[in-house]
């Protein structure tokens, strides 16, 4: 029995973490940070204007088990009503993975798939149910018109299936910030899940992550993957992967040191050339950075070109993603 409870609790926590991630991504432009707390299944998103989105994430282990959904809804409304007392809530969100969050077969078509409905858009019977609970239990601090409901399909032991909708959200976000999601989307999702989930479970089950902490790992991934794929098009060189692997530390050293970045950026600005042109025309001015490398001339040339190209291109990605996330 306790085993089942433990796994149900872990499942609930997983849903909460992923809900927090999803809510953060949907509000990324206005958001400053996200806070997840296990005890009350609380999610808090602090916005730029210091107001907060309070969310409650309640999961059912079996998606077709509706026996507890009203109980879960009631609990969520109770916690949201408590949060409303703080007076800084701009939005109150109830998040669940049940396709029938009001246990009413007639309204089930409202909640199929990933759904986001404001209180005023909810079917009448659902509105009535919420009103009824709020009246009966005295959760009157909660303004129903600031309430919305999100349904996120989230079930199964196969994680690929469980995170299907979460992954879809991540992909949507990536395309909004103009990042080709291929090869990055799953990795960044896992990093976010890890940062929220693992860190939180290991400490006191409450974790706060700033937008900065969320977005920079994405930039790192994009620079690693997307930038490389971009300049590879221009190199026509099969050996490029080899060189990248073999001289990873040299490339890192020179693309990440501020001194080197400044040097390249300043030269580039002065030259008024496109990055590709600049690399072709000036690569031999930077051979000093690969002096210590024992390699043939051809390899050294490729290495310098990779370094220069990376420095020039990574800036665009950093700028674009920061802009997209309003960082």
């Amino acid at each position, binding site marked *: 029995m306790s085993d089942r409870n433990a796994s149900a609790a872990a499942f609930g926590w997983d849903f909460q973490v992923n809900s927090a991630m999803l809510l953060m991504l949907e509000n990324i432009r206005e958001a400053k940070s996200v806070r997840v707390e296990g005890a009350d299944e609380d999610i808090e998103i602090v916005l730029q204007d210091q107001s907060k989105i309070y969310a409650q994430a309640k999961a059912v282990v079996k998606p077709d088990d509706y026996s507890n959904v009203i109980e879960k809804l009631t609990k969520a409304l109770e916690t949201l009503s408590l949060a409303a007392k703080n007076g800084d809530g701009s939005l109150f969100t109830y998040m669940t993975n049940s396709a029938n969050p009001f246990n009413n077969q007639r309204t089930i078509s409202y909640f199929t798939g990933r759904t986001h409905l404001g209180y005023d858009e909810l079917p009448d019977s659902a509105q009535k149910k919420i009103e009824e609970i709020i009246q009966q239990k005295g959760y009157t601090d909660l303004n129903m018109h600031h309430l919305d409901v999100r349904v996120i399909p989230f079930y199964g032991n196969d994680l690929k299936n469980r995170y299907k909708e979460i992954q879809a959200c991540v992909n949507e976000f990536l395309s909004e910030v103009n990042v080709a999601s291929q090869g990055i989307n799953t990795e960044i999702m896992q990093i976010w899940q890890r940062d929220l989930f693992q860190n939180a479970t290991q400490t006191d089950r409450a974790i706060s992550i700033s937008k900065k*902490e969320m977005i*920079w*790992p994405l*930039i*790192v991934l994009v*620079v690693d993957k997307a930038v490389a794929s971009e300049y590879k098009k221009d190199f026509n060189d099969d050996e490029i992967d080899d060189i990248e692997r073999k001289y990873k*530390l040299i490339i890192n*050293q020179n693309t990440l*040191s501020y001194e080197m970045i*400044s040097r390249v950026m300043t030269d580039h600005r002065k030259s008024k050339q496109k990055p590709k042109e600049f690399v072709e025309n000036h690569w031999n001015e930077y051979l000093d950075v690969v002096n210590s490398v024992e390699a043939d001339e051809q390899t050294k040339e490729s290495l310098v070109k990779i370094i220069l190209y990376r420095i020039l291109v990574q800036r665009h990605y950093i700028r674009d993603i920061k802009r997209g996330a309003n960082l």
Partner: protein
Amino acid sequence: MRFVEFTLKEGFFQKTVKFSEIANIIYSEKNTAGKTTFLRTMFYTLGYPVPSTKGIKFEGMEFWITVENNDKYYKLYRHNSYLSIDDGNENIDYSLPTDFYEIQALITGCDNRDILDNLLGASYMDQEKGWTLLNRGKVIGNISFNIEALVRGLGGKNCADELLQLEAVKRQLKKYEYMHSVAEYQEAIRETGEDIEYDAPDEVIDRRIEVLRSEKEPIADELKQIKSILRKNKMLVEYIADMKLTVQSPSGEEIPVTRDTLVGFIDNNEFLTARREMLTADLEDINRQITSLEKQKGKEEQLFKVQTAIEAFDSDIKRISVDAIATQRIIEQLKKERQKLQERIRSMTKQDNGVVLELHNCISAYAQELDVSETYVAPNEDYIFTNDLKSLSGTILHKIVFSFKLAYIKLIKEKTGLILPIVLDSPTGREVEHSTVEKMLKIIQRDYSRHQLIVASIHDYDLKDKKIIEFKDRLFSSTDLMKVGE
């Protein structure tokens, strides 16, 4: 053959009973006075491997019995596996169970083993099994009765070769069945997932740890480098900021040179910090995996130490290669062969064997006399070999069993001249009615008057020339205390 005198001795107690050559009733009021033990020890003294009864160990006791056969007297003495026979001329020593047949041949005058094997079942009716033992089964302990063998012996048929073959097949079958059960055992441990490998897990874990360590190395190197770049960048910017420089933009705005105004520095710093955090997390992941594997390894080592006998056995069993399917096939073949041999032996037993008909006639006659409806004893001669006992109700079964017994005894006498004593242990009991028993005993006294009759019972029966041997309380009473010096 008759029992003349029987003495049994346990420690200081000794009891001697003299038998009437016609009819004896071993009588006691209570059921626990040792009548059954007494009867069983008589046959034990003759050399039969009769198991001890509750509370009395035959092995530690001494027995003397005098039997008479064909006007010859044999005085037998038995103590555990030692047995001696004094026939008046000489005293011969025997060792049991090796000399069993020799002993029986001497005192019965019959040397056919098929008959000797089945004399006890014909002569003795055990209180527990006797009244349901019809034509094959256990008489007492492991002593069995088999009508086929008896019929063969009485009919002078010999299937020694076939019997040897049958024995060989049975032995083989048993071995293959053991083999098959090993296969089943293997299957069971495999199915329940209890086949913990004790031989290789450390190697597997070690290999995984090795892989993780090799993955860890470049990450650690990169992390070290990132940290160093971060430090150098910071030093550079601090150095620049310390110079307190100010630059002028084309619009004329004066800008102090600090870490915040250096183009791209903050981004660079954030980028490096993010990468450092990611690498740190990766490293922690790997370390966590290594730690958990090492813990697991420790656990496995512990497990190995406390590997129980059953686990050791399981892992040994698993190494035995048994082909379950092939074994099963051989078992099926052997079973067929066994059946064929048994059929052959049976048919050889019955073929042109007058004993079968004689037995059948005799059984039918007695059954009829005991009011068993003809429908129960089938007219088919083969009926005497029947396996179908379950359809018979208690009383009818007892009557039929009794008829069979009488038929055996009669035929044994006719074919070998051996006049067996008839020993009945507690005939009244269960479904056997007193009146039926009286009727049976009358038949014995009428048709088997030359056979000595010994009945153990808590009832007295109306018998001609009966001698009542009364037991009080126990097998040994105080009067049985051996008189020292006598």
